[in-house]
């Protein structure tokens, strides 16, 4: 990216110059000089487009892991006020609605698990349905799927997947309000029939990780993690149902925007006023998909827990936290000293509530919300904590991953799946996958430096680093 098109505000914050933004509201990029310089020009174009949407409050923002998406950039955050004609955008949420990470903490240490890593990985690979075309054992009727859409992870717990304690550590306690299953097409419901309790493909994974380093002892203690401990992270979303809702509403909202006189700088920003029938229809469907994603990760949590206990019968496997990173949520934020109810789009961005936020579980209230930056299978991931300044900086939002720096096509030209898996094994990281192509596309070198992203996330005041996690086993979709 040409840095001349940006105005440097501080070491971690860059404002898109007016002429580059082509009018509209303020657009900010967070990141250090190297991260921002390496971003595609399309990120600037896309976040500038977001800043031109009606009812925007505050700046449109790109997180330090931002990269070129469709409509919004991946790593895009923007808040809209329904009382000022604010919009909701299907392109601001994405196809994989409520894709996110469930992080589980165990009471196992690497020393205990190391001799059994291979059988643990094999059993997880057998148990967790992963990859394109792979279905789960659970087949739901349309009626029961409607219940999942309303009740989310609460439904899963009622069906015997995990416990109520898990739900304390899931956003909205595992069930978001406002889901309207009637707004979800029969095609979307049909598409989900075999996909409850599945991981999916692409950048989705289940990783067994070791806590390699603690950066913030107080927060780590609150989160119940220490060096050498094993944690497990599950990255997946709302599966076929969410994908179909994205599909259905992308086209219908693109047409609605035109009918409602909203001039879209990019058709992919497909949106409607929050208060319009079209906006409300999408909102109800999107909330239904969020609940499906929360239920999906709850099922996978239970399957993972059972599998770990096959090999380690007395192991405790508890939910540390569950964060979604493709959502639009109604939240109260203080703007110019006044609390306002806003609809915050986070597309490839994580909510990051600071200390004292009333929605946090009591255990974490003093230190802030756990934020998870999922890195590549060869490098590692971070747990961070939400900050008080994040409220003013980004409507309490932070990075969600390392962010790609290379396209999938380029990665395929550069790496071969089998060779990559062998190289990672030699480094002590065991990969289990049905897709050699998928492994190559997800090569660690195709991603940005996760350390730089986490450092910039902290530098920009969005969240502070708590722990670094190193992968040991990765089940790839």
């Amino acid at each position, binding site marked *: 990216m040409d840095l001349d098109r940006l105005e440097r505000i501080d070491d971690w914050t860059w404002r898109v110059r007016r002429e580059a933004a082509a009018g509209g509201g303020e657009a900010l990029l967070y990141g250090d000089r190297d991260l921002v310089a390496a971003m*595609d020009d*399309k990120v600037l174009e896309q976040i500038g487009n977001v800043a031109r949407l009606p009812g925007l409050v505050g700046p449109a923002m790109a997180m330090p892991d931002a*990269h*070129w*998406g*469709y*409509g919004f950039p*991946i790593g895009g955050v923007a808040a809209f006020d329904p009382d000022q004609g604010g919009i909701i955008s299907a*392109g601001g949420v*994405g*196809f*994989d609605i409520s894709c996110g990470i469930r992080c589980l903490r165990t009471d196992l240490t690497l020393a205990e698990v190391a001799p059994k890593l291979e059988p643990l990985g094999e059993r997880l690979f057998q148990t967790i349905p992963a*990859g*394109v*075309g*792979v*279905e789960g054992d659970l087949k739901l009727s349309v009626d029961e799927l409607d219940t999942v859409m309303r009740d989310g992870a609460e439904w899963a717990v009622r069906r015997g997947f995990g416990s109520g304690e898990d739900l304390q550590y899931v956003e909205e306690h595992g069930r978001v309000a406002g889901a309207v299953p009637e707004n979800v097409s029969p*095609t979307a419901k*049909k*598409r989900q*029939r*075999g*996909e409850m309790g599945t991981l*999916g*493909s*692409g950048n989705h994974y289940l990783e067994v990780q070791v806590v390699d380093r603690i950066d913030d002892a107080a927060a780590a203690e609150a989160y119940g993690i220490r060096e050498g401990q094993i944690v497990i992270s599950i990255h997946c979303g709302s599966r*076929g149902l969410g*994908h*179909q809702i*994205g*599909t259905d509403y*992308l*086209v219908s909202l*693109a047409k609605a925007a035109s009918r409602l006189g909203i001039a879209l700088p*990019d*058709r*992919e920003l*497909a949106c409607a006023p929050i208060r319009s029938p079209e906006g409300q229809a999408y909102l109800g469907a999107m909330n239904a998909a969020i609940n499906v994603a929360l239920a999906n990760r709850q099922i996978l949590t239970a399957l993972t827990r059972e599998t770990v206990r096959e090999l380690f019968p007395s192991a405790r496997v508890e939910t540390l936290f569950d964060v979604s990173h493709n959502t639009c949520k109604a939240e109260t934020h203080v703007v110019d000293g006044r609390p306002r109810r806003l609809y915050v789009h986070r597309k490839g961005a994580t909510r990051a509530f600071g200390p004292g936020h009333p929605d946090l579980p009591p255990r974490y209230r003093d230190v802030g919300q756990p934020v998870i930056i999922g890195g590549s299978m060869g490098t590692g991931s971070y747990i961070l904590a939400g900050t008080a300044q994040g409220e003013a900086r980004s409507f309490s939002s932070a990075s969600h991953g390392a962010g*790609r720096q290379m*396209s*999938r*096509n*380029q990665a395929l030209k550069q790496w071969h799946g089998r060779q990559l898996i062998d190289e990672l094994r030699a480094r002590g990281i065991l990969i289990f996958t*049905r*897709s*050699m*192509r*998928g492994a190559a*596309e997800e090569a660690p070198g195709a991603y940005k430096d996760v350390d730089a992203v986490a450092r910039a996330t902290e530098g920009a005041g969005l969240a502070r680093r708590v722990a670094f996690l190193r992968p040991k086993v990765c089940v790839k*979709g």
Partner: protein
Amino acid sequence: MAAGYAYFEHGADIGVRGEGASVEEAFAQAAAATFAIMVDPAAVQPQVAVTVEFDEDDFELALVRWLNALLAQARSHGLALGRFELRRDGSRWRGVARGEPWRESHPRGTEVKGATLTALAVRPVAGGWQAGCVVDV
């Protein structure tokens, strides 16, 4: 123009582009490109047929609807698809895709979640048509 498909660059996802003598053939090739991301088409037997029908007078939105209808059919029926045909009568589009239920031995790629409106273009080119967009994986 010889029918065929190719891919183009996108930061996170994949651009697909089909070409053919007619817009229908270009769409069929775009579908072939999309499904080849998920499975090696040479390994897919045309044992089962699924059909899609829709009305759309905007060619570009028609491409997105065609690809997304196929993805929905494939996922709803647990199919790997490898062959595609499409006919158009005014704004009415009727297509058929052939494939088979997923087998453990299928060489798997990466799941396509949906076709997007990004880099969406359907246009006449010398000797035929070109149709493409970015698909989300």
